[in-house]
């Protein structure tokens, strides 16, 4: 070896570039934690003042809580909410787990397709789906009238608490399905094989091995579904309010919007209570996840998943699931589509006699056009911004030595358990209290964007984290060892390897932000409408046609974006993503 070769390379330059990696990491942490937890501080503050924050002065008091507890309407709403959440949780967890077992462990015909289709309600606009249900199954709805007319049978009355929880359960079933499916995919199927070879019948294996193995997944998804349905706003507002069934969420929303002088300390107190309950449930869920470790079977790499044979039940069960998907998802969407092309929808007159373009023509102007433009802009900007921020935060959380990094995963998943209306109220107060920047955010659509981004940011993390975890840490250590700093290593090595997850996160964020609405209900003002708020407003005014066409816009764009994501970027939404929450 000659000395020339050995000394050829230039020495490492010690250029100190600003900002240093540490500064960048701290900055990311402060921004993420500040944006997520920040809005809850003014919410708490607003709940212990004797007057709204926008009126100067005021003293500390707990009277808002007193008023809340003294109001019998609140207690009635609380009882309805609990009943609703319990029913929803029971139905969606049982059905979700059943579908997961059928898809992951049996020879059900078309199980892969069923697995994908089951996830659809999670991705389709939830407000649109509810409206579809109302159009098809509501009192005087297309199918419920048909059934009554020709079969003389009553259908489920969706304006009752059980009726509403059926709709909510179909919306949240994918959550249970994903968690259980991921748990089953992780679990070694040789555990079940072992039981079979020990002489147990397939049913016995199911009862004594498979279902017990799912217990943590059931508890975990059950808690999440319970939390989400506790604070659900769309279904109670659209179906409960017209029949005077109040829920905690609608109670707070109507107090805020309908009262001549909104009692904002009372609403803030109610929101704080909901926040407390949701947080407690989240902490409980984290404990359950901790306990899950003992259910993890180490050798999860077994190649082929052994199938339990359904024999004679194969086709009946497949038909049952197909019918469920048809009536819970496809039919409401078709109903909406039909609705958007007719003057009014009735089984008494053939729809082609009532055909009209007017519902679609309306979208070309006024508040409808504005909402579509806003939503498209927010989805695009929010998708990019959230993906960038979450990528940075995920790097800090899992690829840095920042002392506080371990708090980030918890903080990033927090908004998932927080009701949208609480996020909305929180940001409302936050903008109000932060002076000029706050009022700028409050005046335009960017304030809504921020709330949407924070609300949906857990999905971005949930998509990114598993990919990040699969990138071996030695790859970035190698980057550091050859002289690249933290940020350079992230930029040149980790982020390029993360690219598929970044695209997936963008697609998911785009869809979620496009279809989101409840945080915006507290932030929207004339001129800053988005599709969701306009749909809700218009529908509550009794106008259905343009709402159906707006919902179809959401459905159409969602399907197109997901299709592009699936085919171009090979994105697959699988159970694995949600499981790492």
């Amino acid at each position, binding site marked *: 070896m000659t000395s020339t070769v050995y000394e050829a390379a230039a020495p490492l330059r010690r250029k100190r570039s600003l900002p240093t990696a540490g500064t960048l990491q701290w900055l990311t942490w402060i921004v993420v934690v500040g944006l997520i937890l920040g809005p809850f501080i003014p919410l708490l503050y607003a709940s212990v003042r004797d007057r709204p924050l926008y009126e100067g002065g005021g003293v500390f008091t707990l009277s808002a809580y007193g008023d809340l507890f003294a109001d019998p309407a609140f207690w009635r709403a609380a009882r309805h909410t609990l009943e609703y959440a319990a029913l929803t949780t029971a139905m969606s967890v049982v059905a979700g787990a059943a579908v997961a077992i059928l898809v992951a462990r049996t020879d059900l015909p078309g199980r892969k397709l069923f697995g994908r289709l089951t996830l659809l309600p999670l991705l389709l606009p939830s407000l649109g789906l509810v409206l579809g249900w109302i159009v098809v199954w509501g009192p005087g709805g297309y199918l419920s009238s048909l059934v009554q007319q020709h079969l003389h049978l009553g259908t489920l009355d969706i304006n009752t608490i059980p009726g509403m929880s059926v709709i909510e359960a179909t919306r949240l079933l994918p959550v249970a399905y994903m968690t259980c499916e991921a748990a089953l995919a992780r679990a070694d199927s040789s555990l079940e094989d072992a039981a079979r070879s020990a002489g147990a019948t397939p049913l016995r294996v199911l009862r004594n091995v498979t279902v017990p193995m799912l217990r943590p997944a059931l508890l975990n998804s059950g808690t999440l579904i319970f939390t989400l349905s506790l604070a659900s706003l769309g279904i109670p507002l659209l179906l409960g309010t017209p029949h005077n069934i109040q829920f905690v969420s609608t109670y707070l929303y109507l107090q805020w919007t309908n009262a001549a002088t909104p009692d904002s300390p009372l609403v803030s107190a109610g929101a704080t209570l909901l926040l407390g309950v949701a947080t407690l449930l989240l902490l409980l869920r984290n404990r359950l996840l901790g306990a899950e470790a003992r259910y993890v079977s180490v050798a999860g790499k077994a190649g082929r998943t052994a199938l339990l044979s359904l024999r004679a039940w194969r086709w009946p069960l497949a038909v049952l699931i197909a019918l469920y998907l048809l009536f819970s998802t496809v039919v409401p969407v078709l109903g909406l589509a039909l609705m958007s092309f007719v003057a009014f929808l009735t089984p008494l007159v053939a729809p082609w006699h009532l055909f009209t373009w007017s519902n679609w023509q309306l979208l070309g102007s006024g508040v409808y056009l504005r909402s579509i433009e806003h939503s498209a802009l927010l989805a695009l900007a929010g998708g990019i911004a959230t993906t960038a921020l979450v990528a940075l935060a995920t790097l800090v959380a899992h690829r840095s030595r920042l002392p506080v990094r371990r708090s980030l995963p918890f903080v990033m998943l927090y908004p998932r358990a927080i009701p949208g209306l609480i996020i909305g109220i929180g940001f409302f107060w936050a903008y109000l209290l932060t002076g000029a920047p706050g009022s700028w955010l409050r005046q335009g659509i960017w304030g809504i964007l921020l709330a949407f981004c924070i609300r949906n940011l857990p999905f971005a993390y949930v998509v990114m984290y598993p990919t990040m975890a699969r990138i071996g840490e030695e790859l970035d250590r*190698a980057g*550091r060892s*050859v002289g690249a700093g933290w940020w350079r290593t992230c930029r040149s090595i980790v982020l390029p390897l993360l690219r598929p997850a970044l695209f997936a996160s963008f697609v998911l964020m785009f869809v979620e932000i496009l279809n989101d609405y409840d945080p915006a209900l507290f932030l929207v003002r004339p001129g800053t409408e988005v599709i969701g708020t306009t749909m809700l407003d218009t529908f509550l005014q009794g106008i259905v046609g343009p709402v159906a066409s707006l919902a179809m816009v959401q459905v159409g764009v969602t399907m197109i974006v997901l299709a592009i994501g699936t085919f171009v970027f090979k994105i697959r939404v699988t159970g694995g993503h949600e499981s790492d929450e």
Partner: protein
Amino acid sequence: MRRAPDIAVESLVKQFGAQRALDNVSFRVAEGELFTLLGPSGCGKSTTLMSIAGFQTPEDGRIEVGGDVFFDAARRLSVPAERRNLGIVFQSYAVWPHMTVFQNLAFPLKVRKTKRGAIHERVLEVLDLVEMGDYAARYPHQLSGGQQQRVALARALVYSPSVLLLDEPFSNLDAKLRERARAWVKELQIRLGLTTIFVTHDQDEALSMSDRVAVMSSGEIQQIGTPEAIYRRPSNRFVAEFVGRVNLLSGTVAAAERGRVALELADGRKLWVDAEHTATPNAQLTLAVRPEALRVEAADASTLNGSNTLEARVESVAFLGDHYQYELRAGDLALTAQTARAVAGERVKVHIPADACAIVD
């Protein structure tokens, strides 16, 4: 040629929760030396290496390379990993999968703001050095394990680091390839005169490649020495047992002369051992003796007589290709012996050479 620096590691202490990962680890590596950290998994060898690399921060101690202080707990000083200018080959090779072989090697030079032309020249030069010149345009997934390892090594050399750290670089290769790779890396290391620290759990690797070996166990260095010293003169029981097979004989000191100790075994027999030992009579001692150091002869052979010769019964024989392995029993004493040729008969004589014994306890 630029001087390859020496490395001084002083009293490293690292705690993982309640477990002490490093307990006062100290050693010096001379310039151009290949120094091996050998031990079972969890002994702290990788933690030591990663502390030198800058990926672990010990609670206490000091690390100096070629006069530059990399880490000093007393001064709360720790140079970031990227400024240490060390070449590291990782266990998984960590060849970046989204870059071609060329890009993998070019990255360290780009970080150093080397000019384009110089990068091209240097990368090809180093690729030739590891005999991978034809693979510059390939992606890592198109390479075999052995080729990836060469790329990893080339990447660690391309910026002419002062020191090379190897973290179990051969553990992912199959047995045949591993032997070739060992010889090849050793040859390269001598040719480049690189100061090298090598981490392995494989004693053959450690013995065949190293100038000196440090045997580690539960966070402590048990012994530092040349491969011969480690093998022939293990300083304690752990080293004796970890590095190769060994017979352990316990007894009490019956007599001690200059350079010689007589050990009385449990059944009363005496063994003379060459050892500078200041043992007081009646002290408990344990001897280590390697199976291939024992001499085994048929019972009627007359070549073996006198002291340190025991009569033994053959319990089992195994043929292992290049040698025979005997499990013997002499009274209470179980012995394992290796011989090049088979010895006939159920009963044999075993001679324990006085110069083949090491006192380990």
